[in-house]
Each structure stands twice: as C-alpha cells, then as structure tokens.
C-alpha cells in the first residue's frame, strides 16, 4: 500500500522530465529563426504565383527570460527615446494593432536591423542578433502577443502603462501610414 503510494510519486516525476521552455535561461543562444529572417519581403506583390515564405516563429516570444531581457534592452538601448513605453512619441506607438512595416516576428526583426524611412535607425551590427530577436519578441508582447505567463510583469519603476502580462492580445494588422 505504501509502496504504491511512493511509486505514484516517482511516476509523476518521470512523466514530467520534459523541461519547461518558458523558463530556459539561454545566455547566448540564437533562436532558430535567425537565418530565415533575411529572406524578408516588404510587399505581397509578386510576379506569377506568390510564394509567401512560411511564417517564422520566434521562440523567444514564449521564453520569460528572453522577454525580460527584451524589456531591459528596450530601455538600455533607448528605444523609449522615440517610442516611450510603447505609446509612441517621435516614433509610432508599438502597443497598438497597427504596424506600418508589418507586425510579424521577422518583420519586426527586419525593422530593427535595417532601419526604416522617417527616422528608425538601423541597428545592424550594433545590436547582436539574438538581442534583436529578444527585442522583437518584447515589442510584440506590448500588444499582447506573448502568452500571459511568459510576458514580463511590472517593472520596479513608475508605472507608465499596463504590464505586458496584463495586456489583452490585439490583432496584428498592417497599415500603410
């Protein structure tokens, strides 16, 4: 009787030997999407049949450590100089559903690395690749794209907006504006 009781505990342990991806702390990993991101197109207009590449998953969007790093880098690299806490200022807001250059992970990556007209600097070779993916994941989490348990919670600062973990997910819509 007591034996079966302990056995059930051991079984519970062994069944769950898969580690939790949300909690991995990768100190220098590249998300698998890295290579494919350079094959970005800015428009859907194509000759002949359109070949849209399969969307890239940024695994960092489900990783709590990466999202918190993205949040840290967001202020460290002074993104809030133009974008504030996501509400925008000189730069467009990042927490709404309108994405001028596209809101998919690879498009956000592209925006950061290549820069955009009207003031978005290019951070190519200034921000390491994996950090760009962390930032891209964080930027998307500002409109609620990340799972609630991975998204960052409040900072130890003045609260400028609702934390990403309490942000309702918004649809990702492209908008030419």
């Amino acid at each position, binding site marked *: 009787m007591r034996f079966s009781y302990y056995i059930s505990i051991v079984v519970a342990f062994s069944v769950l030997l898969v580690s939790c991806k949300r909690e991995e702390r990768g*100190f220098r990993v590249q998300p698998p999407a890295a290579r494919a991101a350079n094959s970005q197109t800015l428009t859907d207009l194509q000759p002949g049949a359109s070949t849209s590449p399969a969307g890239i998953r940024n695994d960092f969007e489900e990783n709590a450590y990466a999202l918190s790093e993205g949040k840290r880098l967001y202020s460290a690299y002074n993104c809030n100089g133009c974008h504030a806490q996501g509400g925008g200022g000189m730069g467009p807001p990042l927490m709404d559903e309108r994405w001028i250059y596209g809101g998919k992970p690879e498009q956000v990556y592209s925006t950061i690395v290549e820069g955009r007209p009207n003031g978005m600097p290019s951070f190519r070779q*200034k921000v*390491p690749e994996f*950090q760009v993916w962390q930032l891209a994941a964080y930027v998307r989490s500002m409109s609620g794209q990340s799972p609630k348990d991975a998204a960052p919670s409040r900072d130890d600062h003045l609260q400028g907006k609702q934390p990403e973990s309490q942000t309702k997910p918004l649809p990702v819509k492209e908008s030419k504006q």
Partner: protein
Amino acid sequence: MFTDSWNLMNTSLKKSQWTTAHGRLPSAFRLLPSALCLVPSAFRLLPSAFCLLLSGCAGVQSSLDPAGPQADHIARIWWLMLFILSAIFVIVMALLALATWRRRASADNETELILKPEAGGESRMSTLVTTGVVITVFVLFILLISSFLTGRSLHSLAASNPQPLTIDITGQQWWWQVKYENDMPSQMVTTANEIHIPVGRIVQFKLKSNDVIHSFWVPNLHGKTDLIPGHVAATWIRADRPGIYRGQCAEFCGHQHAHMAFTVVVETEEQFKHWYDAQLLAAAQPANTQLARGQQVFMTSTCIMCHRIQGTDAGGAVGPDLTHVASRLTIAAGTLANTRDNLANWILDSQAIKPGNRMPPNPLNTEDLSALLDYLQSLK
C-alpha cells in the same frame, strides 16, 4: 598564496605600458607580512597564535587584517568575543564531560532509578544552576556594552570630518559604478569597479542601487552596507595602510553575484592626485593608424551601445565607463586581471567567463580584435 598571486599581478603590470607612461611602480604598493595583525597589545598573543594555526589572517579580503580604524574596532570586538565565548564554551563542555563521566553506568547493569535525591543535592544543584545563569547574564552584559561602545566608535568617524572625500557607488547587476563627487561637475571622475583613496583621509561612500539589493563590502576596511533600491545608504571609512584591497558584493543579486568584486587602492595623497588628474582627462586620441582602426572598430560595433569613452562619440550608460580602462587592475568587476589575453577572451565571449552577465558575445575577426585591443590598452 594570495600574497604571491598579487605580487604576480604587480609584476605583470610592470611589464605593461602603464608603468612606462606613469613612471616607476610606487614603492608603497607592497603587502605587509602576514604575521602583523593589528590588535591591541593585550590580545596580541592569542590572535597571532590563532592566525598562525589557521594559516594566516592576512589577506586582501580579510576582516582579520584591518587596514583602517573601522575594521580595527570590529576586529577588536571579534577577538574579545572569541576569547570570552571560547572560554565559556570550554568551561561548559568541561562541566558536561565531568557530569557525564563521573558516575557513568556500564550499559550492562540495569541501573536503578534515582527518585529520591541525595540530601542537599537538589539545593546544591540549584545554587550551581543559578550561579551559571548569573555568570551568563554578567558576561552578556559585558559583551553588550562592548558592542555598543564599538558601534559608537564606528559612527564617530562620520562626525570627525565635515568635509570627507565623497564617492558615489551605484551597484548594478553585476558591476560597480564609481563616481567621485565634487562641487564642480567638471572635476567629477567616473570610473568602474576600482576605487582609489588617499591614505589617512576620511572617505564617505554614498551607496545606491540601480536594480536589486547589493552589498558593499571591503573586509580590510569596514563592515558591509547594503545598497537598497529606493534608499541612499552612507558608510564612512578611513584607510591607514596603503595597499590593494579587494571588496565583493555580499548580498545575493542574481546569476553573477559571485563575480561582482571591486578593488580599493589605497595610496599616498600625491599618488592619488596623480591618478585623479589622469582620470579627469578625456580619452587619449589614437596616436597611430592601428589605434585609429581600433577606435573605428569600437565605434562601429556593439561596443558603443553600452560603453562610454569620454572625448569620443561613444556615450553609452549601460555598461562601465571605459575612458581609462587600461589603468585598472582588473576587468569584469574583479573577475580577471587586466591583461591583453583576458581582455580578448572577455570581448569575444564574456558569457563563457561570466555566464548571464549583461555583455553579449562579440565575434570579431583577428585583425579587428587586435586593433581594438591595442586601442583599449591605450586608454590609460
């Protein structure tokens, strides 16, 4: 031991350009022999014996080797308490041993119960127990008063000089930002992970934290004070003996708490002024094409996002100020000696040395790396 290793470090510095640019290595930069613990003469014998028994009290991160009045006061109360409490421990253990041994029963016999105590025995026990308690209270009072008096001595340093040298320390994960206060902003020095103070001068540290709780601790000079976000703490020290001392963060602050150390260099007033004036200068301009190329590498890669070099376009405030990085004894918050190889490994892949720290790996090709290292090593 530690002494030898620090001598080796001094030797390698001699070979570096720092010596040739600034003259001879100051002769006061030597460590005293390990047998000299600074304790009052009444207690001199036992501490030395204790120290010799345990292979030396001296060390550059040892609270038993005080180099200033604060640590000295604390060392005194340590020795006092060690004396008194060891004596008490020995006495109580002796009593216990005697009690256990004197009428022990052999396990074979079934010993009779002692339900009727011997005449006068219980009152004798009462007297003994009461005596023990009274002695305990008495001893505790002595220790209590000593503790209060020591605390008063520690705090008296603050009152004794209204114009101390004030240094702002901001703890970050996982390095120390050091800023020398001055009424004139142009005379403020900002550096990282290394503090120079003149011998005999009272220094006030103002301690702030940028993120989590850290703790500023230089055992040779004083006890620790926590850096708590939202608070500004202050601690006063005075160093009376020149030398190089090591401090370390003493409050768990995350992944690299173990590698968050700093160096305190105690030197003569003249050496301090010399160092301070050098730190005030902007970064040395690249003197040849190799150095210029190194600066170019710095400006065009990830470095400028986080680091500042005064006198150039690099103005990042996230990581340590690198304007005079070559003048420091260590890099990576006391983790590595400041040599070319260590610098190279640190730049290429700091995550292998200090996993989890804020500096990303920077794969550079050999020529770029070499130029960058030349440039950084020119920033004295």
